[in-house]
């Protein structure tokens, strides 16, 4: 990949980030509802409200507020939460302790289960196993994630008492309790994704197996199994990984829902609460961070896939 191409991609993303920041800012600041009213509650007097408005800087003009925010963001200063009155940076940092492992775990589970299942179905294409597996996956693809989460809680924690139903003890409580708390949410998050991955993996692998170079490899002496795992799979994985990159925001969305169901103190729950309470600094900066990291990950994924598939290098589109 040439330096010019990388530069162009980065520049494009930068422009997009600026647009994203404008959208986020406009949305948060044009919404009805007054953050000061939330902070002061039912008995707030108009004077108290005005005083708080002054303190929060809500009196200055919109462009001034935007510039103030974005310049601070670039410096890495995420501001102060209205509601908690602590630095947004530490708030997000704290929440990432459960959100990041959750997303990673869900990603691992969905790829770790989806890819082998897809490979098995493709290897046994047309058999009863394949049909059954695909039907099963279709079913799991169709279950609302929050309902699945509810049902799993009901079964595994409320009835069987295997895993905790909610909350997160934190990593300082030890790796095992923390992982146990993340297990059900990660599974709930991963299952629909795994189903999508498996179905995609299957069709990608079947497509790859029908290519001429598979026959070449067989003529070279590769066994059926060897050609599946060593030749076809790496090639078939490329579109699957691309899909995983595209699905990332969906996973983030799922995190918001799943964290609500399992009352996990994560970024998703923080975001939803912050939107509801008009904690503007938290929402603005958190969304900006999410959008930016999704974009960065997408760029990395693009570069990674291009590295995996040398053909794309020749074709910039």
């Amino acid at each position, binding site marked *: 990949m040439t330096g010019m191409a990388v530069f162009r991609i980065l520049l494009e993303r930068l422009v997009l980030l600026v647009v994203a920041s404008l959208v986020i800012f406009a949305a948060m600041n044009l919404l009805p509802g007054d953050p000061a009213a939330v902070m002061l509650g039912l008995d707030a007097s108009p004077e108290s409200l005005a005083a708080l408005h002054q303190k929060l800087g809500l009196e200055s003009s919109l462009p001034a507020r935007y510039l103030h925010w974005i310049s601070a963001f670039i410096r890495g200063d995420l501001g102060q939460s209205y509601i908690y009155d602590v630095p947004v940076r530490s708030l997000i940092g704290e929440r990432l302790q459960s959100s990041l492992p959750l997303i990673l775990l869900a990603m691992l589970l969905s790829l770790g289960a989806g890819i082998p299942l897809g490979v098995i179905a493709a290897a046994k294409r047309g058999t009863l196993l394949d049909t059954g597996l695909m039907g099963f996956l279709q079913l799991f693809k169709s279950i609302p994630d929050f309902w699945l989460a509810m049902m799993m809680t009901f079964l595994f924690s409320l009835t069987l008492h295997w895993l905790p139903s909610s909350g997160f003890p934190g990593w300082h409580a030890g790796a095992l309790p923390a992982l146990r708390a993340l297990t059900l949410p990660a599974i709930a998050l991963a299952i629909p994704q795994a189903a999508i991955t498996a179905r995609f993996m299957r069709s990608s692998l079947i497509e790859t197996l029908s290519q001429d*170079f598979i026959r*070449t490899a067989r003529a*070279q002496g*590769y066994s059926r199994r060897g050609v599946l795992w060593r030749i076809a799979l790496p090639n078939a994985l*490329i579109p699957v990984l691309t899909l995983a990159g595209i699905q990332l925001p969906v996973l983030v969305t799922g995190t918001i829902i799943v964290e609500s169901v399992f009352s996990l103190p994560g970024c998703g729950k923080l975001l939803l609460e912050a939107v509801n309470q008009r904690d503007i600094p938290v929402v603005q900066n958190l969304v900006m961070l999410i959008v930016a990291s999704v974009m960065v990950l997408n760029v990395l994924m693009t570069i990674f896939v291009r590295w995996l598939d*040398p053909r794309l290098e*020749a074709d910039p589109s």
Partner: protein
Amino acid sequence: MSPLLHVRNLSVQSPERPILHEVSFTLEPGQILAVTGESGSGKSTLALSLMGLLPPGFQAHGSIRLEETELSTLSQQDWCRLRGKRLGMVFQEPMTALNPTRRIGTQIGDTFRLHTTLSPREIDTETRTLMEQVGLSEAGVNERAYPHQLSGGQRQRVLLAMALACQPELLIADEFTTALDARTQAVMMALVTRRCETQGMAVLMISHDLGLVRHYADHVLVMKDGTCVEQGPTPSVFDAPHHPYTQALLAMSLHGAARTPLTPLSVFTAPS
């Protein structure tokens, strides 16, 4: 001399219809047998059944013997040991027959990895030697190149190198020069015939290019609708064809019709 390959009454059935019917022939070491006939006559199916690579649902009957080994009853495992080592095959589509995501050196080296106990370093050396032999090094092609960076002729050389790596006793070449220009074709054929002469490699060459067949093949087998209509030493078949189909084929060839113009594939062979 005992035959290397002995095919007797080979019939192949696809799920829909019969494709090969009672084909029998023998092939001796160092000899080149050309299989010719129009498209759909079953030439490629014949090649694939010799490699044990018939598509799923295809059924073969009859006997294929490679020296003492009866191939038709071979286990999958034994087939894998045979393919690439004793049997080599080159396919006709140079554009798609190579794995686009692996370096050509790796793909050539795979044959060694699958059938020999050479060390990685030795494999590298062998691969480079092989690439020199097929003329890739001469064209400035590095083993770290990817297939899409190569011209069609270069890719065909890679495929040939992969097939020849373990010095197979039988090379099956399915129209492997069809997409190439005349000069490259000659170079490739020279490579193959040298192997026949020095190592006694037998070649089953599928081609509808009668000029090519006449020039290189020791024996010719003419196929039509899945049956062998005529076979024999090249001179006798070409000089005195028995079967009307063979006669017709030859007549067309003389008018130059059988020598197909460059296929549309050649569009892609410009070096990238």
